[in-house]
């Protein structure tokens, strides 16, 4: 049996693991895509589990490089460098899948989820904590618009100089699904992947119980003013994945309000009157992540309706810390 006392994720406070006789557990904490991550896998042979863990971790690092917009020679960098030059970049099987997913996310969200919105990072400095110049944002808006991207199964081209493609909106969630699928393929039947609060489970717990996961209170902070381990509610998860998006994970506070880091592609500013955090449970972590992100790009009422239409389980926390949930077993 292990207990996880260290809360590694920004929003998921704890994985309440239950004792399981005859099962050995290997746990690995690491950093990926800038977030604290954790994998827990169960099996009979701890040496074998460690080998599997190392293998999957190596693959995750390779995945991170492919997703990275900082690697100069990555596919993503090539596309961004070719923007406005008239030179389309050839698709790879992997890139086509990402682009197709980004396209679906754009279509299904009515344009709220836009893989070209990352360019707004030039105006918003969340670390510095200063509000951007509205003129700067207005200047960037013409560079945003997935519907302007010219792509097919062979190539992709960003038509405007300065346009940028960014898969950060679902990279970590995809990596969680990928890791869970890899563990499964390598023979692990029970385990949990937590990449900075984006979760994917592998089977049930060894005792055949669903995983119990706490949703972190987005407002509770410890003495260092960092999010800490208080759960607003507990979920059970027997398959699939879970993702949380929070307006307060990274934000710029003024006297009047808090500007969250999830920005509307049409305005360049965060949506008004949103939930403080949205957690969604789905068959894939990436789908949960897209749905929770899009929820924060809408007003609270619209987000609730949008989630209800999917029929999935979700947890909403509003700006006053009130919790609203639907169908907590998954």
């Amino acid at each position, binding site marked *: 049996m292990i207990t996880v006392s260290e809360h590694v994720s920004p929003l998921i406070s704890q994985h309440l693991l239950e004792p399981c006789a005859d099962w050995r557990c290997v746990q690995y904490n690491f950093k990926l895509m800038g977030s604290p991550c954790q994998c827990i896998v169960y099996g009979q042979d701890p040496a074998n589990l460690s080998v599997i863990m190392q293998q999957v971790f190596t693959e995750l690092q390779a995945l991170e490089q492919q997703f990275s917009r900082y690697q100069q020679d990555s596919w993503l960098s090539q596309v961004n460098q070719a923007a406005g030059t008239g030179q389309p970049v050839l698709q790879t099987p992997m890139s086509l899948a990402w682009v197709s997913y980004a396209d679906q996310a754009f279509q299904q969200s009515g344009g709220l989820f836009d893989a070209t919105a990352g360019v707004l990072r030039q105006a918003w400095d969340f670390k510095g904590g200063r509000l951007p110049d509205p003129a700067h944002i207005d200047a960037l808006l013409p560079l945003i618009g997935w519907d302007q991207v010219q792509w097919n199964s062979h190539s992709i081209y960003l038509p405007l100089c300065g346009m940028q493609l960014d898969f950060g909106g679902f990279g970590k969630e995809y990596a969680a699904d*990928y890791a869970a699928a890899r563990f*499964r393929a390598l023979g692990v039947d029970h385990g949990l992947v937590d990449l900075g609060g984006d979760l994917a489970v592998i089977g049930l717990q060894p005792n055949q119980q669903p995983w119990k996961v706490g949703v972190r209170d987005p407002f509770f902070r410890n003495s260092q003013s960092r999010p800490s381990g208080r759960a607003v509610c507990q979920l059970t998860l027997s398959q699939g994945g879970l993702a949380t998006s929070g307006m307060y994970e990274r934000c710029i506070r003024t006297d009047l309000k808090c500007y969250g880091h999830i920005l509307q592609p049409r305005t360049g500013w965060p949506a008004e009157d949103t939930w403080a955090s949205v957690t969604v449970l789905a068959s894939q972590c990436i789908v949960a992540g897209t749905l929770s992100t899009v929820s924060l790009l809408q007003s609270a009422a619209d987000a609730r309706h949008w989630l209800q239409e999917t029929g999935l389980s979700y947890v909403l926390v509003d700006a006053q810390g009130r919790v609203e949930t639907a169908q907590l077993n998954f």
Partner: protein
Amino acid sequence: MTSPRNAPASIQTAKNVSTRASHYEVSTKLWALTSAALAMPGIAQAAVPPEKPIFGLRLSQYSEDALQASNTLGNQAVDRYDIGVMHLNGVIPYSEKVSFAVDMEYETMSGASPWYSIKDPASNKAKVVMTGASIDDTRLDMNASGSYYLPDARLDVHTGFSTEEDYQSFSGGMGTALEFYQQQLVVDMGMSFSADRLQPTPHSQLLADNQKRTTDERKGSYGIYVGFTQVVNRLMTFQSGVNMLLKTGYLSDPYKLVQVADMTGFPQVVSENRPGDRSSVVWVNRVRAYFEDYSGALHLDYRYYSDNWNLTSNTFELSWNQELKGNWTLTPGIRWYQQSEASFYAPYYLAPRADEFYSSDYRLSDFTAMSYYFDVRKKLGDVDIVFAFEDYTSSGDNPALTNFMLMTVGFDYRF
């Protein structure tokens, strides 16, 4: 009281409708995002077991049109079958690897059915003689299945029984679905069997020896199936499969008679008699294409059937599944069916046959049929409300060919 076996065409139709409607439809955006996610390298998993228990109820009313007076002996319009069907089904996920499904159907049947047809000396046309007494019977059908999900594969076993006053059937089977190329290709195969026992109720009238009903008969069937589903692209799938079925034993309808002229040309009425084996091949093809711009899916099906009784049939079915605002789904569709007659079929026989096989059953005759249907589905939270309507008309030479209407209401509840 007597044979509900007269109505398998109707029962089959009712089943088709309930199967079609009980499939849980996810919301468009979830479907689209999940499909795109599953296309990403490494994510696709084996057949995904159902996530939550689902309970469904369907109530159907099947009503055959009355037989036209001009088609009956004595020129009297005769009411035919009415069948009420209650169908319950449940899907129970047991663990990440195992799920169970149960299915129960209860039918109450009443009305009259065609008994035999004769050559009307006045018009020289075939006319129907109906069973005199009104038939009342009930049928209970129970099926259970279990599925075991492996990485890239699924194993299924199923068993069921069906019981009526004069009929018992026990069936079972197993199958597997194998997934290749990250679920781009799924290969299905399986086998099934059934063992049936018929104990027809004796006729109330005194009949001649050659019209006497058999009292205890058996039949069996054995089937194998191979098929595949190919993901053509993100928005289209194609499915094709072949099903081979062998039926042996007593395959006649114990309640049906035929008119056969004897060697002297004098018309006699005797029990029908069909060959003791029937082997058939069914080839099914399905295309499902999703149109993003219209939030709708096109379903196009073609089915070919052929058996050693020389009966062949072709079915084309076209439907459009339209998602609308407010969680409504509307599915209008049409089905066209055409079959050729069995080699030994005739509406009446002007001379005895050397092989002594006779049947005037309209279901073995040459005919075409057309169905129009629509399904309406509204999602309200955890509940899907379903309404379906079908109008079926058939035409051909047999005077007993039927038209019917089928109405279904029901719901699916996801826990």
